């Protein structure tokens, strides 16, 4: 399995029927491909739609129906169009069950930095700060390393996205839960050892006594509530 596919596939297992889910652009958007279209999951796109569907067939694009990256999408039956005030009302108000965000750094307290590298890359935070602050559950989906350096650090030196810790971090090497005391590895990729994860991780972390393989097929996702 490719690293990005492994990450997206694992994140998809956190999604249950009835959930309202916001996927960030880039890697997180791949997660939708691993959620069956009949699973009863609704995707929100912060530019203004609940019930985001797949890309339309060539020649059937609607210019007024796009995702937050500006790409053409469709709407599933039961979709709703909303304005930005409502969209972020839902996000900040805790009405989004789960958001999956990309990351530049996650530190050992579970804090996320994902919106700028001062002096180098300043894309802006878009909706990330509101999502990281307001969504009921925040998962970060990112590659473990970038340019040979760990993206999981002792303390973020990039500007934080929120002071609220994330809930789960899924990389190509491992799955970390954020607990009261910090990061805990719950699962690792096949052919990867805890030693490999330690070698690739600047942050300190604990290892769960019941360590699992992150490619393991989990039981069918349970319905919300």
């Amino acid at each position, binding site marked *: 399995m490719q690293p990005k596919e492994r990450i997206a596939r694992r994140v998809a297992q956190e999604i249950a029927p009835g959930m309202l889910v916001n996927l960030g652009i880039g890697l997180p958007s791949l997660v939708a491909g691993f959620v069956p279209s009949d699973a009863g999951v609704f995707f929100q796109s912060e530019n203004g*739609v609940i019930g985001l569907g797949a890309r339309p067939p060539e020649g059937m694009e609607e210019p*007024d129906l796009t995702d937050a990256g500006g790409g053409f999408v469709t709407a599933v039956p039961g979709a709703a*169009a909303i*304005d*930005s005030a409502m969209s972020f009302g839902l996000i900040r108000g805790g009405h989004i069950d789960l958001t999956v965000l990309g990351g530049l750094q996650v530190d050992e307290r579970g804090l996320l930095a994902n919106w700028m590298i001062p002096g180098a890359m300043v894309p802006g935070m*878009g909706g990330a700060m509101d999502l990281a*602050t307001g969504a009921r559950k925040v998962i970060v989906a990112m590659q473990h390393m970038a340019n040979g350096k760990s993206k999981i650090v002792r303390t973020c030196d990039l500007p934080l*996205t*929120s002071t609220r810790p994330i809930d789960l971090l899924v990389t190509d090497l491992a799955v970390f839960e954020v607990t009261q005391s910090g990061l805990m590895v719950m699962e690792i990729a096949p052919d990867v050892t805890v030693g490999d994860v330690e070698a690739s991780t600047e942050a300190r972390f604990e290892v769960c006594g019941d360590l699992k393989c992150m490619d393991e097929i989990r039981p069918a996702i349970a319905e919300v509530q």
Partner: protein
Amino acid sequence: MKKPLSPKAVADLVPDGARVMIGGFMGVGTPNKIIDALVSAGKKDLTLIANDTALPGRGIGKLVSAGALRRAVVSHIGLNPETQRQMNAGILEVELVPQGTLIECIRAGGVGLGAVVTPTGLGTVLEEGKQVLEIDGEKFLVEKPIRADFAFIAARQADYLGNLEYSLTAQNFNPTMAMAADTVVAEPEHIVPVGVIPPDAVRTPASLVDHLIERST
């Protein structure tokens, strides 16, 4: 009833240095005829309030490329390298605002609220220079309302009074911005006689709209 104006006539209303709000999200739901007219008229030193600066050559991206902006208050510039270039060169001042805070500050400006009290950005670099308010032991950032001289609004359909309907994700910032500027100009795809839009379908009441842009012929 409002006699629709040409895009050029609207551009003539806008002085250099004006504060302009422009609807749209990555070019979707953006009033393109007005933007083209502002570019053609060679406007300078505008302050832009918008979600993003789109892509070069698309929507608001055209204003960036034309050098019409001195300042941009936006949530995202990541897909427009020309915005980044002008920012790094010190030509264009960029203030980045979280998207939810940006739309809510525009709403506050439109609905007469004194500030937005939000958890977003608390404890981050965005807190610098801002008031922190404690409510029942929880802390929040105090963000100021945002208003503009002009709001340029894209709509699916208008009637000749100025009632507006929007379409799917082309709605985005438009209805909120239509409340928060001294002069509001709507660029609808269609204009229909008064009475054609059902009261429950109106998202922006006519009394908020000062001018309509004529339909393409």
